C-alpha cells in the first residue's frame, strides 16, 4: 500500500533543475535507501517528501490510511507532519537540555497526551539504549548516542514515516552499523523508513527499496533486484560458428525461460530468468547445435557496482 508518491515532481532553482520529473512511490513498511553523488539531489528529494520545500512542478501525494484518500502534502502539511518524523543530517536537538527534556519537549509539541508520551519515551529510551543517559545533557552524549537521541526525537510521536538525511554521516563504521541496525529495528516495527546514505553496502543489506539519483534525475527506483537488473552479469555469451543457423538456434532458445536474447557480431548474449534452472537445458542446446560457450557470468552486480556504473554513464 502506497504511503507517499511523487508525481512528475520537478524542483528548479535559478533555471537549473535540481530534480527533474521525479516519479516515485513508497509503500507502507518500506525501507527505502536514497543514494546518489553529493549534490545529486538526494537531500532535495527528502525535503520534498517531508514538505520542507515545495516542488516547482508536480505534486507530492500522501495517502491517508484513515480516510483512504490521496492528499496533497503541500495543502495538508500540518496534518501530515504529525505522521512524519525527520532526522536531518546534523543533530537537531537542544544540546543544553537533557535527553529526557528533549524528548518531552518535542513529544509535547506533537500534542500527545501525557501517558502516551510517557510510554513512548520509555519505550524509545529502551529501544535506543538511552535509558541510562536520560538525565544527561544532550551535549554530553557521545556521537553515537547523540544520533540515537536525534532519531528518538523524530520517533517520539510514533510517526508512520521516518525520513533521515544521511544518518550515518560523520560516524565511525561501528556507529554506522549501530545506527543502521537501529533503523532496521524501527522499520521492523512497521514504520516506513526513507533515508539517504553513501553507505551503499548497508543499504543493500537493510533496504528493500532503493532510489538512485543521478544528476537530478531518479535513475532507478525499486527493489534491489529491479535496480540491479540492467547491470546483471548472470548471462551467457555464445559464439556462433560460421554458417550456423542463427534463427533456428534463437528459436530453440526462445523455448527456454529467458528474459532476453541479444545478437552481436560474434554471437548471442542470453539472459535467462533464472540462471541455475536454465543452465542444464541451455547446455544441452549448445551441445546439440555444436556451439561454443564463450562467456558465462554468474555474479550479481553489487549496489556499489551498479552505482558506479550509473555515475560513470555505463548501463
Amino acid at each position, binding site marked *: 500500500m502506497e504511503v507517499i508518491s511523487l508525481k512528475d515532481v520537478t*524542483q528548479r*532553482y*535559478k533555471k*537549473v533543475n*535540481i530534480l527533474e520529473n521525479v516519479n516515485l512511490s513508497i509503500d507502507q513498511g518500506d525501507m527505502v535507501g536514497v543514494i546518489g*553523488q*553529493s*549534490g545529486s*539531489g538526494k*537531500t*532535495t528529494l527528502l*525535503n520534498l517528501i*517531508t514538505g*520542507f*520545500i515545495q516542488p516547482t512542478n508536480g505534486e507530492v501525494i500522501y495517502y491517508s490510511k484513515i480516510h483512504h484518500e490521496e492528499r496533497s502534502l503541500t495543502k495538508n502539511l*500540518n*496534518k501530515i*507532519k*504529525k505522521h*512524519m*518524523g*525527520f532526522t*536531518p543530517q*546534523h*543533530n*537537531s*536537538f*537542544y*544540546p543544553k537540555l537533557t535527553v529526557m527534556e528533549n524528548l518531552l519537549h*518535542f513529544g509535547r*509539541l*506533537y*500534542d500527545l497526551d501525557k501517558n502516551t508520551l510517557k510510554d513512548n519515551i520509555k519505550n524509545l529510551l529502551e529501544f535506543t539504549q538511552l535509558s541510562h543517559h536520560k538525565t544527561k545533557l544532550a551535549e554530553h552524549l557521545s556521537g553515537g548516542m547523540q544520533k540515537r537521541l536525534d532519531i528518538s*526525537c*523524530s520517533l517520539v510521536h510514533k510517526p508512520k514515516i521516518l525520513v533521515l538525511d544521511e544518518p550515518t554521516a560523520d560516524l565511525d563504521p561501528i556507529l554506522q552499523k549501530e545506527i543502521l541496525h537501529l533503523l532496521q529495528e524501527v522499520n521492523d516495527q512497521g514504520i516506513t523508513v526513507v533515508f539517504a546514505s553513501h553507505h551503499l553496502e548497508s543499504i543493500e543489506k537493510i533496504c528493500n527499496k532503493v532510489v538512485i539519483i543521478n*544528476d*537530478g534525475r531518479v535513475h532507478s527506483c525499486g527493489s534491489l533486484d529491479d535496480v540491479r537488473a540492467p547491470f546483471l552479469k548472470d548471462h551467457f555469451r555464445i559464439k556462433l560458428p560460421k554458417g550456423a543457423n542463427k534463427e533456428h538456434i534463437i528459436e530453440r532458445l526462445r523455448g527456454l525461460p529467458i528474459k532476453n536474447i541479444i545478437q552481436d557480431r560474434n554471437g548471442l548474449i542470453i539472459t535467462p530468468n533464472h540462471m541455475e534452472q536454465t543452465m542444464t537445458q541451455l547446455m544441452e542446446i549448445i551441445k546439440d547445435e555444436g556451439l561454443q560457450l564463450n562467456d558465462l557470468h554468474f555474479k550479481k552486480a553489487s549496489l556499489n557496482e551498479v552505482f558506479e556504473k550509473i555515475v560513470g554513464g555505463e548501463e
Partner: protein
Amino acid sequence: MQSLLLITKKNVKLLLRAKGSALVIIFAPLLLILLLGLAYSTGTQLGLHLGIHAPTFSDDVNSFIKLLEDDGYTISTFETSIDPCIEEIKQGKIHSCIILPASLQVEGNTQKEVKFYVDPSRVNLVWAVQQAVESKFNFKSQEISESLTNNIFATLTSAKSGIATQKTSILDIKEKGNGVASSNEEVQKTLKSLDLEAPVTNPKTANITGDVANIKDKIGDARGAISSSPTMDPIEKEEIGDLLSNAESELNGAGIKELQAELQATKEKFSLIASAVRTSSTKLDKSTERIQNTIKALDEVEIGLTNIIEKLDAQKVTDSDVISAPLVSTIEQVGAQASFLNYLFPAILVLVIMFSSLLLGTTLVMMEKNSPAFLRNFFLPISKGTFIAATYLTTLIMISIEVIIILAISLFFLDEILTTLPSVALVLVITASVFAFLGMGVGYIFISEETGVLGSISLGSLFLFLSGILLPLEGLPLWLREMNQFNPFVIAEKLVREIFIFSTPLVDVLPELSVILGYAILLFLLIWFLETLVHKHLVHRFMKNHHRAHRQKDKQNKNDA
C-alpha cells in the same frame, strides 16, 4: 611580529567578509553618528512651547509674547487660569508655563514678579527651558530697567536746568544783597560819624545838677517839715513857703541859663543827628526795597526749587534694586516636590525595559536560529504564531522578573510608586512587547548572535539618543522632532512619567497608549512576516548550495570532456 600582522590581517578579512558583522561593526556606528549629526546639527533655538497666563494681556505683555514668538517659541495663552497650562506640562504638550503681571511697567519701589512653571522630571530640559526663557525675560527686564533709568536721567536733567535758572536768580539776589550791604555800610558810617557826646564845657555845669538836686531835696524836706508841723502857725508856714519858693527860683536862675545854652548846643547836635538819620532812613528805605525784591526773587527760587522737588518726587522708582532688576522671576515645579530619583525613575525604568527587551528578543531568536534544533522545528506541527508567541512570552517573563526586582528595590526609595504600580506595569508590559518584537526582528535579520546583539544595541542607542534623555529633543530640527514623537521610547517614557510623577489616570493617556499598543501589534505582524522569510531564506540557502554543487559538477564534466 609577522605572525601578529598575519593574524590581524586574517581577523580583519573575516570581519569584513562576514557581511553582518561588517555592517554592524563599521556601518552601525557611522550610521549612528550620521543620524545624530543630522539630528542635532541645528543652530536654531530650542523648539519650546510655552504657555502664558496674565490677568490682562496688556500691550507690554503682548510685546513680551511677541518677543518670544519672534525667537521661534510657540506660545499658547491662557486667559482664565494657569491650571490648564500646568496640566499640559504634565502631558508634555507644553514645556513651561509663565504667569506674567497685568503690566510689566514698574511704578513703585516694588519689583514685578514673573512665575515660571517647569516639569522637573525632564531633568535635562528643565535648565534649558529656564535658561532659554529667562534670557528673553532678562532682556525684557533690562529693557524696563533702561526705561526706568532714562526716566531718572530725564528728571535729573530737568532738575539741572531748573537749578541753573534758579542759580541766575540767586546771583541776581546776591548782587542785590551786595548793594544792600554797601548801602547799609554807608548808613553805618553815617551813623558812626554822628557826635553823640554831651557838650560839657563848664565844670560847674557838671556839678549843678547835683547841687540843684540836693537843694531841691532840702527844700522839699523843709516844706515837708513845715507842712507837717502842728505847732507852727499857718502864716508862718506860708512865709517860710514863700521863702522856699524864692530859693527855688534862685536855683533856676543863672545855672539854668547856662544849662539852657548847653541844651541849645545839644539841640543843634541833635538836629544834625536828625538830618543824618533822615538820610539813613532814605537809604534804609532803598535797602528795604532791595530786600523786598530779593525776597521776591527768593520766592521765585523757592517756586523753582519746589518744582524741581516735585519732579524728583514724581520719580517713584528710587530703589536701586528695583531699577537694576525691575522684574524678578520665581520658578515653581509642576507636581509634588521630589528627589532626582523620582524624576529620573521613569526614564531609567523604560531604558532598562528597552535594552533588556531588545537584547532578550534578539538573543532568544538567535539562540533558536543557531540552535541545532532549529531545523527540526520546521517539521513540528506548530504554527509560526506559537513560536513567535513563545519567544515573546519568554522575553516578557524575563522582563517581568527584572521589573519586579527593580520595583522592589525602588520601593525602598520611592514609597509613592505603590499607588501607580498597576498603570505603570501595564505600560511597561506593552513597552516590553514593542521592544521585544523589535529585538526579535533584529534577530531574524542578522545571521550571527554577536552581530544581532550589536544590532540591537545600536538600535537601542539610536532610540536613546533620539529620546531626549541625553540631549533635549527640543534641540532637533522641527521635522525630525515631529517624527521623533513616534519613537516608542519617547512615548513609553512620557507615559510612565505622566503616570508615575503626575499620577495621570490611564484614561487621559489613552491616545499614547493606543499608539504604543498599535506598534506592538504591527511589529507582531512584521515578525510573522520575518519568520516566513527566515523559512524562505533557509530554503533559498539550501537550494543555493545545491545549485553550486550542480554548477561545480557541470564544470568538472566539461573539463573531463
